[in-house]
């Protein structure tokens, strides 16, 4: 069979694909056109456009907001590794099987319950203002340190649960095989279970880190002027909500590639497994 001619089945499959693509493109264009034509017909549209999509204010506020976003990125970069490490530690605590280590199991359970149950912003306030209020001297009372700690404590609870689900999903035959090879429980964990578990939950963890990128903005409540706070300052000065739209656009520039990467990893994993 030569490469240039297709079999009847292949030709049919190709034509079906082409037709589906054409229908999809037409349908998407129609929806986009409807939105573009019908939304401005709403009576309040000029006022909403002036208030949320004001081009002049968009351009004025973009540079400063981009600069403020760098602070968000920095906070994210120093929080994310610590969250990953602490999350793994808490997951291992919850997985402690020896009866002597029961207090660790209890600690892990209480930790994940408390920090997943309380809203992040409350923890940011309690730790960000409360701990420095105990009388720490500068620079140890900085809101950056304690706010980041609040984020780290909260997010590691979620990440710990993800790691724990990964560890528990490794079939017990793996542990049995490791035991039959003479590996101790800690070696089993280190060489057999964890490598598989961590790889298995990478997509779920990526979800948490995308959420973290946005929750970093909560640190603005205790002082740091990052993008959300700067957008609020502009909103107050110009009496206009466009700076928030600018902040949303800047966030999307980062989170959309991250989301696509997570999707790619998940589909790669699905292909490997099946």
């Amino acid at each position, binding site marked *: 069979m030569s490469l240039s001619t297709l079999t009847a089945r292949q030709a049919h499959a190709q034509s079906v694909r082409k037709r589906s693509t054409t229908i999809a493109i037409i349908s998407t264009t129609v929806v986009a056109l409807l939105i573009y034509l019908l939304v401005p017909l709403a009576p309040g549209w000029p006022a909403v456009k002036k*208030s949320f999509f004001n081009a002049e204010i968009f351009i004025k506020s973009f540079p400063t907001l981009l600069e403020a976003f760098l602070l968000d990125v920095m906070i994210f970069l120093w929080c994310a590794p610590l969250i990953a490490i602490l999350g793994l530690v808490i997951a291992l605590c919850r997985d402690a099987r020896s009866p002597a280590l029961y207090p660790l199991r209890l600690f892990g359970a209480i930790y994940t319950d408390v920090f997943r149950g309380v809203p992040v912003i409350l923890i940011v306030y309690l730790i960000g203002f409360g701990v420095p209020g105990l009388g720490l001297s500068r620079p140890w009372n*900085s809101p950056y340190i304690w706010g980041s700690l609040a984020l780290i404590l909260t997010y590691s609870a979620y990440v710990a649960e993800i790691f724990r689900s990964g560890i528990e999903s490794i079939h017990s035959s793996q542990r049995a095989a490791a035991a039959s090879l003479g590996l101790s429980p800690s070696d089993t964990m280190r060489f057999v279970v964890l490598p598989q578990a961590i790889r298995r939950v990478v997509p779920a963890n990526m979800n948490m880190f995308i959420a973290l990128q946005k929750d970093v903005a909560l640190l603005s409540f205790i002082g*740091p002027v990052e993008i959300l*706070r700067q957008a609020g300052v502009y909103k107050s000065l110009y009496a*206009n909500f466009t700076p928030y739209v600018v902040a949303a656009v800047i966030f999307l520039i980062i989170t959309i590639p991250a989301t696509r990467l997570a999707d790619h990893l998940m589909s790669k994993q699905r292909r490997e497994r099946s």
Partner: protein
Amino acid sequence: MFLKSSISIASVCLSLLVSSNMAFAAGECATGKTMKDGVLTIATGNPSYFPWVIDNKPADGKGFEAAVAYEVATRMGFDKDKVEWTTASFDESIQPGEKNFDFNLQQFSITEGREKVVDFSVPYYSAAMAVLVRKPTQEKGAKAELDSLKGLIWGADASTTAVPMLKKLIDPSEKPLLYNDNNDVVAAMKANQIDAALFDLPTAMYLGAAVLDDGVVLGQFPANRSENPDQFGMLMSEGNPLKKCIDEALVAMKADGKLASIEADWLQQTTGVPIIK
């Protein structure tokens, strides 16, 4: 006899006409221009702070802004039982849809940028801006001089005009930290994360005396300063016909001294605060 009675009838009719004219004149301006017919809906903050409103109860009429609002309402022909209070934040006041108030007063400063989106009445108060610090900061050598102030770590309420004022008047060497409201600024001061904060003078005096144990109002930028003056106005939706009536009432209050007497009633004497050089 006939002449006497006709003169008396005529004079009664005339006096009735004149008095009803005056009654109409008092309420005439605002009829039909309010959100709800016959009722004036005023919005303020949630919560509203001392000394602008006492005890978060604007309906009692206690507090500078509550008193000014009731006086304006009376001059427009709405007595106390025809005034309804609601709450609306700054964000709710600038959003493009329908507003749920006739006017909103909560220490809103009149700025050019805001004037493009909403309407302000003529100013009812000119605010001096004051620097609030804690005693330890003053003991470490902070003075009411610009050079000394530049070196402090500053904080402010992010949604107020204190932010541009910090930049233009003081220009601190370290970037200021910004907070959601005055209580958070005070919390940061108590946690020693910031040295100083900028508020309008009455708020600074209240926070320094009642909320912070060791608060000190270090100095003020007086109300009649030429750079970045801060004047409070009542906020209304753009093009609101009620603005004319409110402005008339406020101008009359300024002319006959009523506004000054309300200010003397509710806002403390602030002569002791040094002016920043």
